[in-house]
Structure formats: structure tokens, C-alpha cells
């Protein structure tokens, strides 16, 4: 465990020394928030749109911003850079559990996710967006976003370990966009056309988005919150098992 923490600290130092990467991770999702809200806010006025629960359309869009920011992790890119540069082998030649090499980066992704989610929510507050579920809801919102960041980074790390190629990692990162857009990202699920509703229902990201949205728009509604955490937990277990297996068998 101490090796995981040590490598996690290193990954955090790395992130701090790449402020441009962190800024882009924030800028693109905030850009989408502004653009999407600007385009659709008049169609969905807060006073007459029931699903907004009295808030503006920006509050409805905030989960997409959070998920996007959490999905722009750099862990896999840094990992593949180390594989190509040889430092990965240097770490493999040290008597530490090999899983610590991948878990260290994921621990750092989690910490980064907490900071990013907190900053984005704080930036959103002055624009009339509030967290209706209160302080506990805010903590859950940040935690769920950060956990998703860990899970998603873990899956992209699998591509890094398998392909050992930065190009493949970059392409793999694009997988998230279809997943994000096959969700009720502009309107609630019940307002989608039937094929889209079916697609959204089988897409695990939907439950994550609905959990985040519920934390922003509603009181603590565990019926919506728990499925979100359930999705992250299930995907997290799969991701962890695959990461550990792949690095243990890395040759």
C-alpha cells in the first residue's frame, strides 16, 4: 500500500507541474456548459420546465460538465509515455507489487477529480446553480464525479497497457463521447424518443448522470443516487481486476 501512495504522490506532483493540461481539462467541459446552456435555455425556461425543479438549464447541464472533466484524466497518457520512455520497466524492476504502478496513478486521478469537481461546482454557483441536496449532497456529488474519473482512467490505462501506444490511448479516450451522448443529456429519459430511451437505459453512464443530476436538482433521492454509485462500484471492480491482471502478466 505504501508503494501505491508513494507513486500516487508522484503522479500528483506530475499533474501540478502540468497546469496547462489541468486548465484544458477544466476549460473544455466549462465551454460545453456555457454553449449547451446558451443554446437550450430559452427552450427550457426555469419557471415553466418541471424537470428543472426551479433551477436554470445550466443546473441540468452541470453533470455533463462534471463527467467530461473527470473523463479527461492524463493517467493513461503519462503511463504510456513511461512505457515508451523506459521508466515503466525501471519501476517493474523494483520489488514492489506491480499493481501499485497502476493504482498509484488512479489514486492521484481520484484526488485530482475531487479538486476539479469542487472547483467546477464553485465556479457554477455564482451563475445561479445551487446544490439542492445540501452539504452532504455536495460531498456525494464531488465523490461520485471523482470515482467516475478513477474508473474511466482505469479503463484507458488498460488500453495503454495493451497497446503501449500513445496514439491508441488518444483514440481510446474518444469512446466516452458516444457513451455521453447516448444519455438523457439534454432532457430527462422519459422525454427521449424510444430508440434513444432504450439506448440510454442500457448505457451505464445514464445512471451516473441521473444520480449527479438528482444531487443538483432534488433533495437526497436515494432511489436515483444509489444506482449511480452502484454503476461506479461495479465498473470499478471490473476495472481494478483487469488492471491488476494485465500488469501482473505484462511481458
Amino acid at each position, binding site marked *: 500500500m505504501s508503494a501505491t501512495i508513494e507513486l500516487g504522490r508522484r503522479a500528483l506532483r506530475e499533474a501540478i507541474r502540468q497546469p496547462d493540461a489541468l486548465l484544458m481539462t477544466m476549460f473544455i467541459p466549462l465551454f460545453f456548459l456555457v454553449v449547451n446552456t446558451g443554446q437550450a435555455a430559452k427552450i427550457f425556461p426555469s419557471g415553466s420546465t418541471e424537470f428543472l425543479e426551479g433551477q436554470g438549464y445550466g443546473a441540468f447541464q452541470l453533470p455533463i460538465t462534471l463527467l467530461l472533466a473527470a473523463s479527461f484524466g492524463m493517467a493513461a497518457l503519462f503511463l504510456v509515455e513511461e512505457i515508451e520512455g*523506459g521508466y515503466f520497466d*525501471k519501476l517493474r*524492476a*523494483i*520489488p514492489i507489487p506491480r499493481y501499485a504502478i497502476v493504482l498509484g496513478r488512479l489514486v492521484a486521478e481520484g484526488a485530482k477529480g475531487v479538486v476539479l469537481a469542487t472547483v467546477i461546482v464553485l465556479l457554477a454557483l455564482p451563475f445561479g446553480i445551487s446544490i439542492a441536496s445540501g452539504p452532504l449532497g455536495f460531498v456525494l456529488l464531488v465523490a461520485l464525479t471523482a470515482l467516475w474519473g478513477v474508473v474511466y482512467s482505469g479503463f484507458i490505462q488498460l488500453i495503454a497497457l495493451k497497446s503501449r501506444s500513445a496514439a491508441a490511448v488518444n483514440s481510446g479516450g474518444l469512446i466516452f463521447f458516444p457513451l455521453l451522448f447516448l444519455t438523457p443529456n439534454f432532457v430527462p429519459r422519459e422525454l427521449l424518443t424510444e430508440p434513444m430511451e432504450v439506448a440510454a437505459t442500457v448505457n451505464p453512464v445514464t445512471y451516473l448522470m441521473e444520480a449527479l443530476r438528482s444531487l443538483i436538482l432534488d433533495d437526497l433521492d436515494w432511489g436515483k443516487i444509489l444506482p449511480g454509485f452502484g454503476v461506479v462500484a461495479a465498473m470499478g471492480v471490473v476495472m481494478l481486476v483487469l488492471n491488476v491482471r494485465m500488469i501482473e502478466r505484462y511481458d
Partner: protein
Amino acid sequence: MRLASSPGPKGIEQNEMSGAAVRAEGLVKHYDGREGTVEAVRGVDLEVHAGEVFGFLGPNGAGKSTTVRMLTTLLSITSGRAEVVGIDVARNPDEVRRRIGVALQEAGLDPRQTGRELLVMHGRLFGFGAVEAKERAQQLLALVELEDAADRVIKGYSGGMQRRLDLAAALVHEPEVLFLDEPTTGLDPASRLTVWEELRRINGRGTTVFLTTQYLEEADQLCDRLAIIDGGRIVREGTPAQLKADLRARNGHGPEPTLDDVFLDATGRTRERGAGEVQEVTA
């Protein structure tokens, strides 16, 4: 050849190596490539004595790096057996990792850390306490003469500085055997001489050095004994002086052979044919 066994520290089975720091028997590595199975190493037998500098030479693609990667636990062994300080590489890889230092072909470093941070972290990963790790990092920075650059990020280091830091990182835990895969490739002559000095100093402290190189002058200068690998098999083994004397004896009278001549003879290459691969050779 069978090796007698005796219980070692922490219950790890250690073999009586009669002074052998590294021993390989029938070491084989096959890869599954697109065009079928690639036989990268085809039955390497070698023995490195404790305290010596052992040179491992061969043309590009001969199997040098693959052999080193198997000996350093980084690559699985298809068949055969390897031991480092009497510990079976395949059975007890973690115990082997505690005893070896590794600096591979590219100076594998984390470019976003400072030299000091990297060495402290390596110390911590080898189980040192925080204070001990800092002290060890300081000692090593002094050893490789990087104290002035210690708090700069590695990205800004020159090739020679990176090589020296890579060496320092491989020495954090005072390994018994140091594996160096082409440690001076790409360095200017001054940096190469500095690395040679470091190696002599490290070896002088009792560390066994297993060195792969394409520079025969380097092998001649540094190595007590050497082996030449070609096509995945060892084709010559001995001290540089022995290998030259053998060639002279076979060729009869003529000019004193150099290690280049030994290399070309062993690998069946002529100067013309091998020009692309060994053109740096000047010994």
C-alpha cells in the same frame, strides 16, 4: 548442470554458486510474431563471477537486450534457467529485484520529477524511511556529480546527466549486481568517459557489473570478461586478451588482432558487411 541448493535469507532458496553472480543455463526466449514464432534467444549459457565487469556484446538484434530483460525479471523465460546471486529469477523475482540494479537502453526516467525527488522516491520504494531515503539520495547525487542539478526537473537534463541519474537510481539500494544495457549509447565522448569512471568506481566498491554494449573499445577498457552473442547464441566467451590471443593463434602470424576483429570473426561479419551495424567501433 545441476546446482546444489541451500536455504537462504527469508526462506528463499539460494544455490551454491561458487562465486557466480549471474548464471544462465539453456536460456530461451520465443515471441509470437505476425510471421510466426521468433526465436530471440536460443539457449544461452553464461556465468558471471562476483565482483567482475562482464561485457555482453553482439550485433543489433542478436538477443542482448532480451537476455538482459530475462535476467532482470522484466521478461518471462520460455525455457531454461537463470539465477542471480543464487536466486532463481523465475521463482523468486522480487528477491532478485532486491539484489539487482537496472539501467536499460534508454535512460528510463520520469521527466517531470527533479533528480532528488526521483532518487528519494526510489529509496522509499525500496523500503527506506523518509530521512534515510533523503540521505541516500544526497549521497548518490554527490557520487554522480549532480548535486547542482538535483532540484531541477529531469526534462532539462542533458543526455549525459540523465545517464548518470539513471545509474544513481539503479544504485539506490546498493545492489549486488548492476545490469547496464548500452549505458553510453548516444553520449558524447566526454560523457562516455564520465560514465566509464562511474562504472569503475561502482565496480571498485564490489558491485558486479553486467554490461551490454556495441562499443568494443568500451568492452576492452572496462570488462574483465566478455561474451559475444549472435543469432541468440553465445559464440565467444573469455577475457578480451584471451579472445584476441585465440584469434591470433587461429590466424597465424599477422597484426595483433583487436576486439573488433574478434567481434567480426565471431559474428561471421566482414568490415564491409557489418559497416552499418558496427561502424562506431574504433578499438
